[in-house]
């Protein structure tokens, strides 16, 4: 029997294979050369450009765009990578509409910013297609550094350390390097196995060894790493997931959105991936949107995001919210889960409306139920597996023993974005380098 969006329960292949393939194709197709030149020509080459300030990695955006405009996209890529070695992925996943493009003077003036993200992708794709890796290692320093976590922060840190001539050992608990780039980004934002291709490209610098399947706390200990290496960088991300704290959340069909997203990314044939007919996603961030949109693209009939605060408080950008609603996802705000109902498996989720008051969220007393055979929890991730000796503040690593640095989502300072993690990993590498060599640069 062929499945359809109306098939009850959780089922694969709700849409014909070609529709599913089409749904997960490049969300925003790459610019071709002419489009890139036209888009680049719109850049005003601002003095002390606001876009550079808005970029967590401070990429010299006007310069790289001018380099594209003058037919040297490869030089543009070098400009990008010098600040952000994962510029290719960031071009795909950065919420540019709340970063560089939000402050572009043409966004302010006309509501139509220079397409910085797409231009960045054009530059990095062009250079990667030519097999360019415009960095060469400095002479070996004889120092070794352990990097825990092969996510954006760890990779950025490792590359910069290797560049300075240090020997880097990367320990990754999962089967593949890439972190959230590999396991946590919506599939249509990173097509063509880009995350792995980018990791392979990055490792061309040399001097970096990646060990996968090695988990801090289980297989290795911080003390052991410190004994073997001159310094340690922790880029362990957020390994835990917040609970709903609603009755019945242990019922079958209730899962973590991050696990669903990861499974989807690791599924070669998406027609084999089951999805519910009625999917409810609880949360208001990018993870919620990614889980909801992809459920819809797999063929779920009804997908609803339920968020406990007002829509303006959602951490998913306006652009992401619009994308969700454009594919047919419904967004309900000011409602929090009360209970998950069902006999063994989830059948309905009960929500109570809440008012966002000065005294915090207050239930209004009014409730409603949504049909659900699959529920994704996307109400935030938490730090887990923190090594002894690390001090926490606000659920993030805030203090570390000597010779240990950290960056990325496991630390505070900035949003939990790929680009922020890259900046922190890079800057930690510079700090480690200074510490090891006793000199700047």
């Amino acid at each position, binding site marked *: 029997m062929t499945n359809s969006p109306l098939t009850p329960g959780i089922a694969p292949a709700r849409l014909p294979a070609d529709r599913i393939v089409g749904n997960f194709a490049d969300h925003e197709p790459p610019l071709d050369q*002419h489009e890139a*030149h*036209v888009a*680049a*020509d719109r850049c*005003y*080459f*601002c*003095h*002390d*450009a*606001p876009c550079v300030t808005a970029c967590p990695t401070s990429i010299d955006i006007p310069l790289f765009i001018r380099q594209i*405009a003058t037919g040297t996209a490869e030089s543009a890529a070098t400009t990008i990578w010098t600040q952000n070695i994962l510029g290719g992925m960031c071009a795909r996943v950065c919420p540019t509409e709340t970063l560089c493009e939000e402050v572009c*003077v*043409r966004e*302010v*003036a006309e509501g139509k910013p220079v397409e910085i993200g797409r231009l960045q992708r054009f530059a990095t794709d062009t250079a990667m297609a030519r097999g360019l890796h415009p960095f060469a290692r400095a002479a070996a320093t004889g120092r070794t550094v352990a990097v825990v976590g092969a996510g954006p922060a760890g990779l950025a840190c490792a590359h910069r350390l290797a560049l300075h001539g240090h020997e880097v050992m990367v320990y990754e608990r999962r089967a593949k390097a890439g972190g959230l780039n590999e396991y946590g980004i919506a599939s249509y934002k990173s097509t063509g196995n880009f995350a792995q291709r980018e990791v392979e490209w990055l490792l061309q610098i040399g001097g970096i060894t990646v060990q996968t399947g090695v988990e801090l706390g289980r297989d290795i200990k911080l003390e052991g790493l410190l004994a073997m290496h001159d310094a340690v960088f922790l880029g362990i991300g957020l390994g835990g997931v917040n609970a709903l704290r609603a009755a019945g959340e242990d019922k079958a069909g209730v899962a973590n959105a991050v696990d669903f997203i990861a499974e989807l990314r690791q599924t070669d044939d998406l027609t084999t991936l089951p999805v519910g007919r009625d999917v409810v996603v609880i949360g208001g961030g990018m993870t919620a949107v990614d889980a909801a949109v992809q459920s819809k693209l797999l063929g779920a009939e009804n997908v609803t995001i339920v968020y406990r605060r007002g829509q303006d408080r959602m951490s998913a950008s306006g652009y992401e919210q619009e994308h969700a609603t454009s594919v047919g996802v419904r967004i309900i705000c000011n409602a929090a889960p009360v209970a998950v109902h069902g006999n063994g498996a989830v059948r309905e989720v009960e929500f109570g409306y809440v008012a966002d008051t000065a005294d915090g969220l207050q239930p209004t007393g009014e409730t409603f139920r949504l049909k659900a055979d699959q529920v994704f929890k996307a109400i935030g991730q938490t730090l887990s597996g923190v090594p002894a000796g690390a001090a926490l503040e606000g659920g993030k690593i805030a203090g570390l023993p000597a010779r240990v640095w950290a960056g990325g989502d496991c630390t505070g300072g900035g949003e939990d974005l790929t680009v922020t993690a890259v900046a922190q990993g890079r800057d930690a590498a510079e700090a480690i380098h200074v510490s090891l060599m006793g000199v700047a640069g």
Partner: protein
Amino acid sequence: MANLTTDFIGIKSPNPFWLASAPPTDKEYNVRRAFEAGWGGVVWKTLGSEGPPVVNVNGPRYGAIWGADRRLLGLNNIELITDRPLEVNLREIKSVKRDWKDRALIISLMVPCDEESWKDILHRIEDTEADGVELNFGCPHGMAERGMGSAVGQVPEYIEMVTRWVKQHSRMPCIVKLTPNISDIRKPAEAAKRGGADAVSLINTINSITSVNLDSFSPEPMIDGKGTHGGYCGPAVKPIALNMVAEIARSPETHGLPISGIGGVTTWRDAAEFMALGAGNVQVCTAAMTYGFKIVQEMISGLSQYMDDKGMTSTADLVGRAVPNVTDWQFLNLNYVTKAQIDQDLCIKCGRCYAACEDTSHQAIAMLPGRVFEVKDEDCVACNLCVNVCPVENCITMTEMPKGAVDPRTGDTVGDYANWTTHPNNPSVAAE
């Protein structure tokens, strides 16, 4: 609706938009299409003398430069005069003119620099009933070895001599087309006038290499790895052409000599500018080659609307209106003091004015917190660079300081008109 009919040296046309002697006017087929589209006149592509026609290259004839969206800004060509037999051209000219009596049809000519050759060609074209001739002394290629084209156009004495022959052996109105590849455009214009020319037309194309291929190191357009200078035209040459037209229009020696304006005319506005600087009509080529003949409709409607808005009823009301305002530098009013002013509501905070002023001008713009840009009147020399680099129209403007005000930069009071000729720093004034 304004009357666009023009009478240029006795040649009438329903509008002042003519197609210049160039590839678009090389054949009956093209010229008929042009007239059907509404062009007021056509200068038929240059005819040579009797005998085997010239040959053109068989590779690219045109090179170009573009803006970002492939907008063609400048074009150059290495095409010669017509490469079709003289008889064919003459037959076609006659055929077209018979059917399009209300349109101007001028024949461009270029023959060897001897009286017999000119006498002969003039005799041959008499029968076509064309309205006039244009002497091509400007083709950058010419046929220098045979004393034609710019080889003549760069020597005022030759221009005068040939023009005199033409006027002697023909009753047709005679337009002399001038090459810009010369240091003082007034000299050939004066020579043409002395020779009896009824008008001059300018500019012909400018010697140019559009680009160099950085892989093969050949100039563009490239013929088998080599290139040669071509004639540059299109929007990019308009400012050069406007100046040369103005120089002739305001020179006492040539003032009043009818001018047909050529050089980058792309829109009605360009045409109006040429006419304001003294051109009685304009000739167009690159714009037609870029967009096709239909553009003349916009030129007609645009010029009509402009003239209506200005209360002008005939093109004569427009021609030459700006000429009295073209002067020499030493007569510019040194007591005209302006200051840049930035409209903070329009400013989009790109900072280009700041970068331009700070790096390359007079450090007269302050960058304040919040990316607010403000002009420092005490440093502003009113150079206008900020106005020119600002991407927002009318965001930065020049405001004139009223008479009696004190310029905070110089401490001087703005006074009455005074120019360099009476300025104390002028050595020739001090010598008196």
